[in-house]
């Protein structure tokens, strides 16, 4: 396999420790421990490297072996790791410090988190006994996810020097990416590089995979290319993303939600627009936030009309950062305040409803049986986006509601179809455009239809309207 055809996360594996990005103190620990072997086996014959994925744990071991000229015997998840197998594979090697060609030897047990209790029966304990007897350095590597991961490795943890790896810091990540980009001879816009680094949360390997996904076969990578990447991992449920957005204190934090939600940026935009006036309850905040959204809208229409999609980044900045940073004076009690205000307009004595915040949303509960009033109250709350929950006898008003636009278009479909056909008739008979018919004439025709039956029939036949259309005009809006 030539360098060019390799996946980039392999191709840019550091070959010496100096090239490893971040985690300098962990690397220093590892290196000192290796050097201590030169004076014979130290107390802890194994080093146990753990940390999140893609931060350079295995890379560091491989690079170190290169630096110090060790022969590296590697056992990973592709090998069966039962007691018997392991003893066959490494048992003997661990007792011989030199290879046949006279090089020093070290052993790497990679992907330890994948050692299975069933298929790899006895694996952990046999690794433990290998460590106890070993004459050569043994390095264990595990990706730690979740809590209590080390319980499984208890016998090994006690025998090993524990070295923790951390996510690669943003700056180190950028520097490493720049080196790779230089070596590839391509150009990647700085903001694109930043977004790549940002969205990976310190996982350099996934960043390189992402870079490869967008940059293969390209001379130049723009922000837009990166935006188009579907997020490989955890997608936020939209309301959670909105919660993050409205509590963000920096452009970077706010901006993150564009790539972390599972919906497209235009849907996300609609969600933000729908909920913005509920969260921003201060009028100056709201005016600023709405203006940010309006500016975002302009950037989007420019990007579309010029086909210059790099302009979209300005849209993203406005719709996330612009909105989030507008929130300076708002109490953020949006939904609950909205609920209280609405309840006050219903004409019940104070205390007729209890309003409480729960994890799912604001709960509105009538204290007494509402009887005939229920319908009226329900329609008011429904208008706010609340839902009646039969069990518990309460309305639940979610903190964020989905965009109402599509729902509204769907609800008014028939009515809009009538409007169009009537408008076409009016336009022809009155020598005007249908637009003018809609805005100037039809509203007045409605008044005529609702006020005077004879006139309605007269106009109806003059316009040659169908009965359905005439009935539609008679209906109060």
């Amino acid at each position: 396999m030539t360098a060019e055809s390799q996946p980039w996360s392999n191709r840019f594996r550091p070959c010496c420790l100096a090239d490893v990005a971040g985690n300098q103190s962990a690397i220093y620990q590892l290196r000192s421990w290796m050097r201590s072997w030169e004076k014979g086996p130290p107390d802890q014959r194994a080093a146990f490297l753990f940390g999140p994925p893609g931060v350079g744990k295995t890379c560091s071991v491989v690079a170190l072996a290169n630096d110090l000229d060790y022969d590296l015997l590697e056992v990973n998840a592709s090998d069966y790791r039962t007691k018997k197998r392991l003893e066959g594979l490494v048992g003997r090697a661990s007792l011989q410090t030199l290879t046949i060609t006279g090089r020093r030897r070290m052993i790497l047990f990679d992907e330890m988190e994948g050692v299975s209790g069933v298929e790899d029966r006895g694996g952990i304990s046999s690794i433990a006994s290998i460590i106890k007897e070993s004459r050569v350095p043994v390095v264990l590597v595990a990706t730690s996810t979740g809590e209590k991961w080390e319980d499984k490795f208890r016998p090994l943890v006690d025998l090993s020097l524990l070295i923790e790896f951390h996510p690669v810091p943003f700056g180190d990540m950028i520097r490493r990416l720049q080196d790779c980009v230089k070596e590839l001879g391509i150009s990647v816009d700085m903001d694109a590089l930043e977004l790549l680094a940002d969205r990976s949360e310190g996982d350099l390997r996934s960043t390189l995979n992402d870079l490869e996904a967008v940059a293969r076969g390209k001379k130049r990578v723009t922000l837009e290319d990166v935006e188009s990447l579907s997020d490989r991992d955890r997608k936020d449920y939209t309301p959670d993303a909105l919660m993050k957005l409205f509590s963000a204190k920096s452009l970077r934090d706010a901006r993150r939600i564009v790539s972390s939600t599972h919906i497209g940026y235009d849907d996300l935009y609609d969600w933000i627009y729908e909920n913005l006036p509920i969260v921003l309850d201060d009028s100056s905040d709201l005016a600023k936030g709405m203006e940010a959204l309006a500016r975002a809208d302009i950037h989007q229409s420019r990007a579309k009309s010029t086909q210059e999609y790099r302009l979209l980044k300005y849209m993203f900045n406005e719709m996330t950062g612009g909105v989030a940073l507008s929130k300076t004076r708002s109490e953020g009690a949006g939904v609950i305040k909205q609920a209280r205000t609405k309840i006050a307009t219903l004409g019940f004595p104070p205390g007729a409803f209890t309003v409480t915040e729960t994890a799912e949303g604001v709960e509105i509960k009538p204290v007494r049986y509402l009887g005939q009033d229920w319908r009226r109250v329900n329609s008011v709350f429904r208008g706010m986006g609340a839902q009646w929950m039969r069990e518990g006898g309460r309305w639940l008003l979610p903190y964020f509601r989905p965009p109402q636009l599509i729902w509204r278009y769907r609800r008014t479909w028939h009515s809009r179809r009538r409007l169009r056909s009537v408008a076409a008739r009016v336009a022809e008979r009155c020598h005007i455009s249908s637009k003018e018919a809609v805005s100037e004439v039809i509203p007045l025709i409605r008044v005529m239809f609702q006020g005077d039956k004879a006139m309605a029939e007269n106009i109806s036949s003059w316009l040659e309207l169908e009965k359905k259309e005439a009935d539609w005009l008679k209906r109060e809006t």
Partner: protein
Amino acid sequence: MSGGMWAEKYRPQTLDEMVNQTEIVSRLMNFVKDRNLPHLLFVGPAGVGKTTSILALARDLYGSGYRNYILELNASDERGINVIREKVKNFARTAAISSDVPFKILIMDEADSLTSAAQHALRRTMEIYTRTCRFCLIGNYSENIIEPIQSRCSIFRFGPLSEGDMKNWVTTIANKEGVNLFEEGVEAIYEAAQGDLRKATNLLQAAAATQQGEVDDVTIYTVLGKVSPGKVREMINMGLKGQFLDAREMLRTLLIDEGLAAEDIIRIVYSEVLRLGIPEQWKVKLSDTIGEVDYRLTQGARPEIQLSALIAKLALVGEEMGR
């Protein structure tokens, strides 16, 4: 009562019947006498007789079968270059038969809303088919018509109707329809419609329908409350009071349920804001904001978003004024 919409029922059928725009009418009558006319460009505000003039001219020229010799297109409904290429060409290239007039007339209403590419296509068509077809382009502003077209047309500028003419007209119709129209009613109609005769007539008819033929100022205001300007005013007031969510609901009703164009809403917002009882300097500030939104809409921005941003500004203004 018969005849559907009164605005159509009482539309002058011949140039003789037209009571205003006398100077223009006499020039048009000369064309009829000559049995020949140039390409025409009619510009002026709405409801002052532009379409009426050309339809009357056609009737005078061709007689009662005039419909066979004209094609009416509305550019705002049939925008774009393809309409020009297809419909206009097909109509323009065939000569008028069985008439002593050797040409037909193509009426293009709201021609000022044609894109400039479409206007350029139109200009060529006008040249090529001059022998068989005359064009009458109608619009509000001559500025939106490209120079080459203007230079190929005789331009007629229609002025707004005088207050007296308008009031006479409305009163005449009311008498003929047996509507008891009070003096206050006439005033209210003029106040709302200004020189727009079609609007005035429609307003009268709607008012007559609500009060069994008794129309005073209250009747007119009641009707006005039910049509778009009334609802837009309500939206503005909600905005000023800081009820953003309610105002946005109203905006959605106007835009989606009632199909109102964003430019109509912005036009009404503008004229309503100038009439608001707020300090004059605020009117200037708001006018600037409205102008910005208006421009953005011409650039393809989303109407609901831009208008919502405007409502949010209204809320801010309302709050600052309250202090």
